[in-house]
């Protein structure tokens, strides 16, 4: 489902951002000074958003159809920057994006320290959970806001939550709940779970197990996929895979095969090959996700088109995460008409904050764990199947809070 890009040098990354923003910016309006919103408080100094990414080399996905884009994430940030600046022209505010893509952890930490030293306080991160915590826990980072644009790790929303960190993509718990609610609606009560061997696959499978219990979905078989992915690439490899999938799904009846394979190593090779004719969902097949190229409702077409024009490819979930992160900072700065990091940080966490992110409703951050509450798409590669929360799953305050960890259950203590 989520594959990380082979990231390359900063020089290239910066080059990618510039044309994206230039293309989407209108000419300066005739007289921004006449705009009532533009008061003398308008920031003469631009509001800098630092995009911090770790270049992670991942194995290529099993399917050659979807090669990871080199500018994944950053391209979304570029489009959001242009959106911020279009509004900024009218409010007299100017936003700049400072992209840092470092080859290792030390490089990311050094760049973070450097930017903090130069006064930057707004950060968008595309780094693994462990590194995010190292950044957030630096003494100098206390006054900074880090918006995690790409990580779905539930631990970052639980014991690992931090006051200076917000998360825009749905957590694995939210993804799993979105799928399980749909299964309840369909009365598909029995699933088989098939998990890959990476640490992230285990976390995804754990989220599915917890969610299944919560929504009373029975896991009738819980297995691990250990077939060597290299073998299926060999000539005639499809025979081997077909036999392997038939074997592992033998002797058990279930409604749906749920797969946990975040790096796309085998999940696409399960459909049509299992012993029983059953659909596949999870990280492949019917996928719960924040964004999909098939999604065109509630104005999403506009963002899909804008992104396609800027990046010359489809927007991925990681691009969308980066877009939301940069837009969230922009929205807070524009609504408060301030460049003050403390004002922006407080507004992001306040009940007044709302992000319009093409989901048909306002999105806001949960006060208890810094997670952006949002509807989750359920899509396969060619169509939107549904959007969770499903009708009938009610909540006292926000129906989207039926997805993931709600306040009473939260183990995050942000005091």
């Amino acid at each position, binding site marked *: 489902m989520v594959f990380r890009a082979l990231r390359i040098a900063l020089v290239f990354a910066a080059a990618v951002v510039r044309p994206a923003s230039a293309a989407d910016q209108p000419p300066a309006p005739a*007289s921004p000074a006449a*705009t*009532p919103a533009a008061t003398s408080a308008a920031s003469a100094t631009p509001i800098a958003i630092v995009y911090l990414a770790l270049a992670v080399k991942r194995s290529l996905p099993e399917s050659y159809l979807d090669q990871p884009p080199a500018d994944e994430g950053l391209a979304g940030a570029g489009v959001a920057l242009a*959106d911020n600046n279009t509004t900024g022209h*009218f409010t007299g505010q100017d936003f700049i994006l400072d992209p840092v893509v470092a080859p290792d952890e030390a490089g990311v930490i050094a760049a973070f320290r450097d930017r903090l030293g130069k006064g930057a306080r707004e950060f968008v991160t595309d780094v693994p959970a462990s590194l995010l915590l190292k950044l957030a826990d630096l003494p100098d980072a206390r006054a900074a806001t880090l918006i995690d644009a790409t990580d779905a790790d539930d631990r970052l929303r639980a014991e690992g939550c931090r006051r200076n960190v917000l998360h825009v993509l749905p957590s694995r718990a939210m993804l799993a709940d979105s799928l399980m609610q749909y299964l309840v609606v369909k009365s598909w009560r029995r699933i088989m779970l098939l998990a890959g061997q990476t640490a992230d696959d285990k976390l995804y499978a754990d989220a599915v197990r917890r969610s299944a219990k919560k929504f009373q979905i029975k896991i009738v078989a819980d297995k691990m996929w250990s077939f060597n992915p290299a073998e299926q690439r060999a000539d005639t490899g499809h025979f081997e895979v077909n036999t392997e999938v038939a074997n592992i799904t033998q002797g058990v009846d279930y409604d749906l095969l749920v797969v946990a394979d975040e790096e796309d190593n085998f999940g696409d090779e399960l459909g049509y090959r299992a012993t029983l004719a059953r659909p596949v969902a999870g990280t492949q097949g019917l996928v719960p996700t924040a964004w999909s190229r098939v999604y065109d409702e509630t104005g999403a077409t506009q963002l899909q088109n804008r992104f396609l024009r800027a990046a010359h490819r489809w927007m991925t979930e990681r691009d969308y995460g980066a877009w939301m992160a940069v837009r969230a900072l922009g929205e807070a700065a524009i609504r408060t008409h301030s460049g003050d990091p403390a004002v922006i940080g407080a507004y992001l966490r306040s009940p007044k904050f709302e992000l319009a992110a093409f989901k048909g*409703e306002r999105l806001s951050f949960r006060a208890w764990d810094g997670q952006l509450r949002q509807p989750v798409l359920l899509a396969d590669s060619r169509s939107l199947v549904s959007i969770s929360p499903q009708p009938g799953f009610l909540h006292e305050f926000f129906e989207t809070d039926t997805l993931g960890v709600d306040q009473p259950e939260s183990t995050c203590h942000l005091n």
Partner: protein
Amino acid sequence: MPSQLKRGLAALCCLVFAAGAARADHLYVSNEKDNTVTVVDAATLAIVKTVPVGARPRGLLLAKDRKSLYVCTSDADHIEELDIATLSVTRTLQSGPDPETFALSPDGKTLYVSNEDDNQVSIVDIASGRISDEIPTGVEPEGMVVSPDGKTIVNTSETTSMAHFIDAASHKMIASVLVGSRPRFAAFTKDGGQVWVSSEVGGNVSIIDVASHKVIHTITFAIPGVPAETIQAVGINLSPDGKWGFVALGPANRVAVIDAASFAVKKYLLVGQRVWHMDFSFDGKTLYTANGVSNDMSVIDVGDLKVLKSVPVGHLPWGVVYGP
């Protein structure tokens, strides 16, 4: 055979013209998914004709002389002029890319078109059918309205969340006012003193004082048993007598009735699913709504504030206009 056909055609023409002269008023509904405009007899509420138009018809406007209807055919990237006498498309006008909504100048000579995909407003000269100027605006321009005196154009931009006031003579931006998230529609009060702006994601209506360009009030909505997230304000119609404001609440499937003096919500009227745009009858006694998901049009009695009937139309009805 050819002469018979000719005679037949001549007879048909006469019939059409005769019907044209005697016809009652009609409703015109744009069906976004069907690429059609449904024509409904206002007296009988029967469908008179389904007119094929260009791809993805959305915004509709009646010409000043009431002889034709302008249709934004968004995916065809132009505006079509539908002749009301013959119920056929007679001409296309330039619009700029992806026209969604538009407004007509009070003299009936100019269309102001929001180009959702291109961050601009196109100014179209109706006589020549050509774009005379383009004005850069916010991200995803949507709502368009012209002040009653024709001097000011207001455009809303969805991702920028602003109402932009543009001088109609110079095409210069006078002011940009922040409103709720994803502003969809703007309406001037009859005296031109206020602009009401609906926000789809914000779920509210901002009342802007035109003289000061300030938001003087924000109308919010709460309906028992309806999740707050589904209350999405879209279409606004202010009653000709200035007494009421009607606001379509999208997937909340309701139209809010607002006391235009106090801004208090008086009533919620249950209509079809995902109600977006509306129009009054010429006498202001009836309001019609286009309901996108239930594929129908609701008919509201403005005097009693009651929903009278729903009329099935095409797929994904977007807008409705009352005309001859």
